[in-house]
């Protein structure tokens, strides 16, 4: 029996710490208040840039997840859907081509994802991650982490749209709360459009859904 003592010791070692205190899971906590906050009270805004395409069968699941996250985080989360990459060419019957040169450049700049759905959160390489592009299971966690950081700059955006001339004027005021050491800081404005009904491939059918509602589609930067 002596020869079995050592393996038994090993087995005991493995089983010894089976009891653990798990984290609490609550399920969704939807925010009721999504009224815009004045800039003085502005908290950190988190940007999620979703890369998608009308031929991407799994992307609607990612987009639905973003809708849930917008529901949970309210104004603190800003979503942009960028149609770029291998699944983004429109169908012959598509009404719109959602691709933009800026979107292609952003994909090239931020890196090709391993798979879809995919998104980049605050263009940040997070601890434990090896790519800027994140699978949809990692979005919620990193958004929650980013939200807690105090903003360095508060941004007040006031858009003015003239329906007659169809001119959009945007006034942006920056309130710098912290000294910024980076020598090269840019301000980008992104124009997105929601509520566009057009073709989108979904897991429900081999033919694309014609009345799929596309949200926060990047149109211009």
């Amino acid at each position: 029996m002596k020869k079995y003592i050592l393996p038994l010791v090993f087995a005991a070692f493995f089983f010894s710490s089976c009891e653990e205190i798990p984290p609490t899971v609550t399920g969704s906590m939807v925010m009721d208040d999504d009224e815009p906050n004045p800039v003085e009270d502005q908290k950190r805004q988190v940007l999620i840039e979703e890369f998608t395409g009308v031929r991407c069968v799994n992307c609607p699941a990612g987009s639905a997840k973003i809708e849930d996250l917008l529901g949970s985080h309210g104004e603190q989360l800003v979503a942009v859907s960028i149609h770029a990459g291998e699944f983004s060419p429109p169908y012959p019957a598509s009404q719109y081509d959602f691709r933009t040169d800026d979107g292609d450049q952003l994909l090239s700049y931020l890196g090709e994802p391993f798979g879809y759905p995919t998104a980049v959160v605050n263009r940040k390489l997070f601890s434990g991650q090896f790519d800027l592009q994140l699978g949809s299971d990692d979005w919620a966690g990193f958004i929650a982490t980013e939200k807690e950081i105090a903003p360095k700059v508060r941004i007040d955006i006031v858009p003015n749209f003239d329906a007659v001339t169809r001119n959009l004027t945007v006034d942006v005021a920056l309130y710098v709360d912290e000294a910024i050491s980076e020598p090269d800081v840019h301000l980008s404005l992104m124009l997105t459009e929601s509520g566009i009904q057009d073709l989108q491939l979904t897991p429900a059918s081999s033919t694309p859904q014609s009345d799929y509602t596309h949200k926060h589609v990047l149109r211009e930067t």
Partner: protein
Amino acid sequence: MIPRFWLPLLLLTLGLQTVTAQDAENEQTTTNQGRLSGNLQLNGNFFMRDSSIGAANTPQYDRQLFGAESWLNLNYQNWGFDMGIRFDMFNNSNLLNPNGSYTDIGVGRWYVSRKINKLGITAGYIYDIIGSGIIFRAYEERPLAIDQALYGIRATYDLTDNWTVKAFTGRQKQQFDTYASVLRGAAIDGFVGSDSSKVTLAPGFGVVARTLDDGSMNNLVADLNTYRKVDILQMFPDTLNGEGPNYNTYAFSFYNTLTAGPFAWYIETAMKTKEVIADPFGERVTVSGDTISGKRYINKSGSVIYTSLSFAKQGLGITVEGKRTENFDFRTRPQEEGVRGLIHYIPPMTRVNTYRLLARYAAATQFIGEQAFQVDASYAVNKKLSLSANFSNITNLDGDQLYREIFTEIYYKYKRKWTLTTGVQLQDYNLEVYFGKPEAAPAKTVTPYVDFLYKFNPKTSIRLESQYMSMSKSHGVRSDYGNWVFGLAEFTLAPHWAITVSDMYNINPGKESPIDVETGEKEKIHFPRFDVYYTHKANRFSLSYVKQVQGVVCSGGICRLEPAFSGVKMSVNSTF
């Protein structure tokens, strides 16, 4: 960056200093006391854009034009130590992510190993396996950029001549970094019987545990908190009393090989404690009310049973295998997908096809649910003629067909002048599951093939290969890319040269074949390939012009979708 280099460099410096010093003294002594060996693999890809086949819109085709990978492995043995270091380089490489570009360079592996009487210790990047790998396999598969080395320490101890126990702990490698989750494991392997025994047993038992890191758990909880409460209650019924996702997951495995005369019977049964894993074919309703299909978390325990019975006697060989998998996705963190972060390896239940068209539809191992069996038989009628056949069948746990293959082969050898290999393969391949194509009808193929080798003299030979794949239709349209024809001619001038010319032609295009913009018709595209191989002793060089259709690339049931390729490939392989 510096710390990750210092130890390997120190090891290498030590090793080389010894060799140099000994060289100066006496070369013979060097051979007797220390041994330096190694190998080099170098791949270079020149990318030539071809939008017609989909070889476009990646950084390599758009602007980088060239990518390379290299691995230089050096092993040194001396003073009872084994040590090694591997230099890895990826330059604008599409190996890690076929659609992306990856550039990094550094020490991909180092290790030091020492045997002290019955105790063996290894530290560094360790490759190892428990049983057939169902609960743990740390291995490298370069064509898929898989390198699941365990970065840690391992101890082995010989209890007797026939019984060995081992234990290890560490973290899984991820390129030049490691995942944060901690792994630990142990196994005992034995042998009962002797060389003269008619019946022998090789039993074993292993256990592996993974402790999820805080970052991964935080992300997991945050994601679960976007689920509806009803889904959470389904996953954690006792959530009010503190039930939640487990940090620690334990996987156990019993295995044994019994040999009795011409029979060999392997059986392995494994189970895994409850953990949150991702079901890639799940469905759930979001808080916003949308129903989403695709990856969703489940909280379940898992099991695998795998068995293989083989018989071999007098030219007859038969192997019967069976496997049942349920919720056995074991990863370093549940967020990882595809080939990434896998701690284990489940043996595939299909034959490994090598002919181009026969290998086009490969069945990736399904971790959530798979029921499979395979029969493989071969019979050598005489020295000239042998026959073989294979049948494999894979369903999910609900009985839905995932894969079926019938394969036959006749091999005939006429003196030393020529050989003929021919047969037919029938496949039934679930495109919905393996290619993720919604509502796609299964690809049912019939593929006859011929391989003829003619030797002009002992050094000069020509080999001709031909295959034709006939694809089933659904609603009047051929599935996937439709019918293919493939031809290859290989001229060998032993021992140095081999030249290969081949073409894969989409003779009757299918649903996924691209449309010619000018004619509006499906395009019949050629995918030619030209290879030159030169071998000199332990060095092998290759230069190839390749146009390759998009498809699945697999290694042992671990697969990924591979986009089309157009360009020139070169490689150097050397061992020393």
